[in-house]
């Protein structure tokens, strides 16, 4: 068997199956393409079956799994495209370019739906920063997100970041892109029309990232440096030109289908487009504009050079498309034509190098998962000692809880004039256009919970993401996800894959949310350390009038402080339990009923009008949420709490919110109607200080003291 196939991790059986389907042995070029198309990264060999169990239908769904990005209807003729994707292994090797090209890749997925990319979010996971290598990776990744996003002119409006030892050698970089489009502008990737042309639009092809998909489908080697020739470099300046050229061509011309070039390069895009449309194609490799003249045919086909799109359109429209491209200074070459016969013919100067049925490339044999269950964590927790005021201050300094502005202040959050609410607290808010509807968007996942139980962790990731958009007054209407997991070839990794998908399924069903797509990144282990299962959830919440989202108007002193939802009764899985070494126990599943009631409450106009700010309890529980409200608004809070129990103050319930309200009674009445419990805790004050009276005594914190801890200046 040729080297290419073994290198890419095809098994003997897979190679045999390929020969059986072809009815002959394959040539070197065919093995090379197959190696990428049948890699885990492209073919979802381990996860495809399981992913089918996720709910995908919903009133707002216009495009779901299988499309380049999910599309949700926002009303008023507007829609939102969103997808999240990982770029973990490239970022481990070269953090800046790895993150930058991660953003570029996901941005082009959204562009391929016909949407204008409007925002990024970045979900990042690193090892603890006292390890210099982790600090280097974190710096590089954040610089890379800024480098690409700022220059390409798409704001980065949110994300999340956690530090956990399991990510030390295998950091995670998940990038989400959100775009907006009018209903009639939506495009698909299904090529069609015998004789139609394939137009390759974008950058000239170089020797970048060859074999990248295969690289993402194996465990990281200790010396990842040897994988260096595969590193891709993003050019956000060119990316910006590509956005404008693509959108203009889509606007002006009847483009039949479009997809971005990602894993598997030109071969991958052409194969997928043809397979979706049930057609074939002839691709002329000599027509591909090259950056380096000495590329071989397999290199031309498989190069993962960035900033390229493949379009299917009538040959008559090619000159007009090329004229648009020329104005923007991007390459546009006709590289092939569609054939009714569903085979992929690759030519070089008209000489046929290979002809093989499209489906052979596109339908990789699936692999079964080894049996096994996730290891159980011990269930006993020791009792908490009485809460001290230092507990809150210490908690605010923890890397997972402290101020995120040093990260997001290096990102352009505003470009595009769509950002109604910037990063800072919970979900960001975007408008599609002036006067148009908009969305609240967030990414979430909590490694602490996922380490205890992958399934519960996945459920809570969905719940947290839902809470974050609800906090903006938005109704969750769909989610996308990125499953970052260790090797599925080991029983524990296989169990984690099953568990996170089951967790998302449970949560999505309970909240009636469609899963509009996602991405699976397996083999996240390095030097024999597997990452904590990390199902990152990207949530979209609908806001018909985004300029009136909760949190847009400033909150004044004298507002009522309310607690909505049932208080915490357990410390299982909490930051507090970890900080105090109380042990690990499985937390309860999310209270989906309560989340639905909260959704109903913010949908009630009379309550919405009165709520000035809403912030959910997450890491750190009630006291941290209250401190965050004080830090975010600069206001003081003068409060009386009914309990001094650690579980009440620091427990992390799944459906609880702190609200600031202009009129407490109106909110309380609406809460009663919605079946949400509501407690009045006190008032906001002008002095900026947090004052909490509880049965065990009074705790007071000056704003400056909170701020110093939160900024880790202490």
């Amino acid at each position, binding site marked *: 068997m040729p080297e290419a196939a073994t290198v890419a991790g095809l098994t003997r059986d897979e190679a045999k199956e390929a020969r059986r389907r072809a009815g002959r042995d394959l040539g070197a070029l065919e093995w090379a393409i197959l190696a990428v198309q049948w890699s885990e990264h492209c073919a979802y060999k381990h996860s495809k079956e399981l992913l089918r169990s996720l709910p995908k239908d919903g009133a707002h769904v216009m495009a779901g799994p299988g499309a380049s990005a999910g599309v949700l209807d926002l009303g008023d003729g507007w829609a939102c495209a969103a997808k999240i994707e990982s770029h973990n292994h490239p970022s481990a090797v070269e953090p800046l370019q790895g993150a930058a090209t991660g953003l570029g890749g996901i941005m082009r997925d959204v562009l391929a739906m016909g949407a204008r990319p409007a925002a990024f979010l970045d979900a990042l996971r690193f090892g603890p920063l006292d390890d210099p290598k982790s600090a280097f990776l974190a710096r590089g990744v954040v610089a890379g997100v800024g480098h690409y996003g700022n220059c390409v*002119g798409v704001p980065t409006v949110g994300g999340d970041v956690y530090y956990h030892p399991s990510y030390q050698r295998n950091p995670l970089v998940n990038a989400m892109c959100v775009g907006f489009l009018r209903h009639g502008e939506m495009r698909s990737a299904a090529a069609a029309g015998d004789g139609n042309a394939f137009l390759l639009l974008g950058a000239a092809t170089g020797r970048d990232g060859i074999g990248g998909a295969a690289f993402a489908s194996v465990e990281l080697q200790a010396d990842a440096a040897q994988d260096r020739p595969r590193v891709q470099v993003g050019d956000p300046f060119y990316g910006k030109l590509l956005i404008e050229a693509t959108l203009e061509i889509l606007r002006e011309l009847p483009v039949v289908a479009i997809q971005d070039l990602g894993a598997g390069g030109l071969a991958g895009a052409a194969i997928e487009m043809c397979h979706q449309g049930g057609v074939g194609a002839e691709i002329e490799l000599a027509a591909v504009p090259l950056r380096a003249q000495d590329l071989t045919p397999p290199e031309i086909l498989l190069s993962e050079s960035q900033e390229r799109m493949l379009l299917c359109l009538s040959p008559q429209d090619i000159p007009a498309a090329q004229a648009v491209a020329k104005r923007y200074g991007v390459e546009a070459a006709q590289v092939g034509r569609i054939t009714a016969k569903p085979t992929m013919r690759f030519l070089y100067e008209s000489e046929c190098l290979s002809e093989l049925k499209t489906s052979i490339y596109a339908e990789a044999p699936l692999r079964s998962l080894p049996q096994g269950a996730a290891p159980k964590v011990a269930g006993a927790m020791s009792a908490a000692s009485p809460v001290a005021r230092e507990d809150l201050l210490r908690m605010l300094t923890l890397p997972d809880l402290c101020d995120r502005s040093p990260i997001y202040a290096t*990102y352009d959050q505003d470009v595009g004039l769509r950002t109604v609410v910037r990063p800072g607290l919970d979900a960001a808010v975007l408008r599609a256009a002036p006067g148009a509807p908009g969305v609240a968007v967030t990414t979430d996942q909590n490694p602490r919970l996922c380490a205890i139980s992958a399934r519960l962790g996945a459920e809570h990731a969905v719940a947290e993401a839902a809470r974050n958009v609800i906090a903006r007054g938005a109704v969750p209407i769909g989610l996308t996800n990125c499953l970052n997991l260790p090797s599925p070839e080991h029983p524990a990794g296989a169990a984690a894959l099953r568990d996170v998908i089951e967790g998302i399924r449970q949560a999505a069903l309970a909240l009636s949310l469609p899963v509009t797509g996602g991405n699976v990144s397996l083999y996240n282990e390095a030097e024999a350390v597997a990452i904590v299962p990390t199902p990152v959830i990207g949530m979209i919440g609908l806001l018909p009038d985004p300029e009136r989202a909760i949190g847009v108007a400033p909150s004044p002193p004298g507002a009522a402080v309310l607690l909505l939802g049932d208080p915490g009764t357990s410390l299982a899985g909490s930051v507090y339990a970890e900080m105090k070494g109380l042990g690990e126990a499985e937390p309860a599943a999310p209270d989906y009923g309560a989340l639905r009631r909260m959704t109903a409450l913010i949908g009630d106009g009379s309550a919405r009008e009165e709520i000035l700010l809403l912030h959910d309890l997450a890491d750190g529980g009630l006291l941290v949420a209250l401190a965050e409200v004080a830090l975010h608004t600069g206001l003081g809070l003068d409060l009386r709490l009914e309990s001094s129990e650690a579980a009440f103050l620091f427990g992390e319930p799944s459906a609880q919110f702190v609200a600031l309200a202009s009129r407490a009674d109106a909110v309380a009445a609406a809460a009663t109607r919605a079946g949400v419990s509501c407690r009045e805790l006190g008032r906001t004050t002008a002095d900026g200080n947090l004052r909490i009276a509880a049965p065990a005594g009074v705790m007071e914190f000056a704003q400056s003291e909170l701020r110093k801890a939160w900024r880790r200046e202490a």
Partner: protein
Amino acid sequence: MRADILVFPGSNCDLDTEIALREALPGWQVERQWHDGAHLGESQFCVLPGGFAYGDYLRAGALAARSGAIAEVRRLIERGGLVLGICNGFQVLVEAGILPGAFQANTVQHFVCRDAHLRVERARSPFLADFAEGDVLTLPIAHQEGNYRLTADEYRRLKDEGRIAFTYCGPHGESGDEHNPNGSYAGVAGVLGAEGRVLGMMPHPERAAWPAVGRKDGLGILAAALAPRLEGGGH
């Protein structure tokens, strides 16, 4: 009356500027013009928007400053039209020699995006007509190379000529290094051309022309071109 926005490859605040100008200049014709073949003959007001023209490769603004469209900008200035360079547009005007000084990377060596406070240093320019000297504005900044360099002599000369438009300050107008986000000489955030009809500024007024969400301090700057103030300046 017509305002034009000059678009270079890599400009990325051009659409934003268009939205904001429509808000600030009701009734005006607002157009975006691609740099190649741009024509400002009918224009009273030209904005060079923010972004990364030509990727800001080599030096921020350097490549755009050599574009043919800059000759159109110079002609508009000669005719007495108004020119506003925002962020990258300011860098382009400086690289083109239309405004003095030079830019370096922020002293913090990374991109900075946040609200900044600006003190209005001078009110004798159409761009500042809505303000009084000493007014404090809140405008977002978003840049990597906003460290505006002047020599001490140049600074004094500009100051004497009343050409310092804005300096970075605290929320109450107080000066100090802690309020200077990028290391700019003397905290200068915006400078005027000799007649006060050219303004270059790093902060983004077009991002603060959105009253519905409480961002509005940029409107006055963008409204500089409102008809009455153009008297004698047009052609």
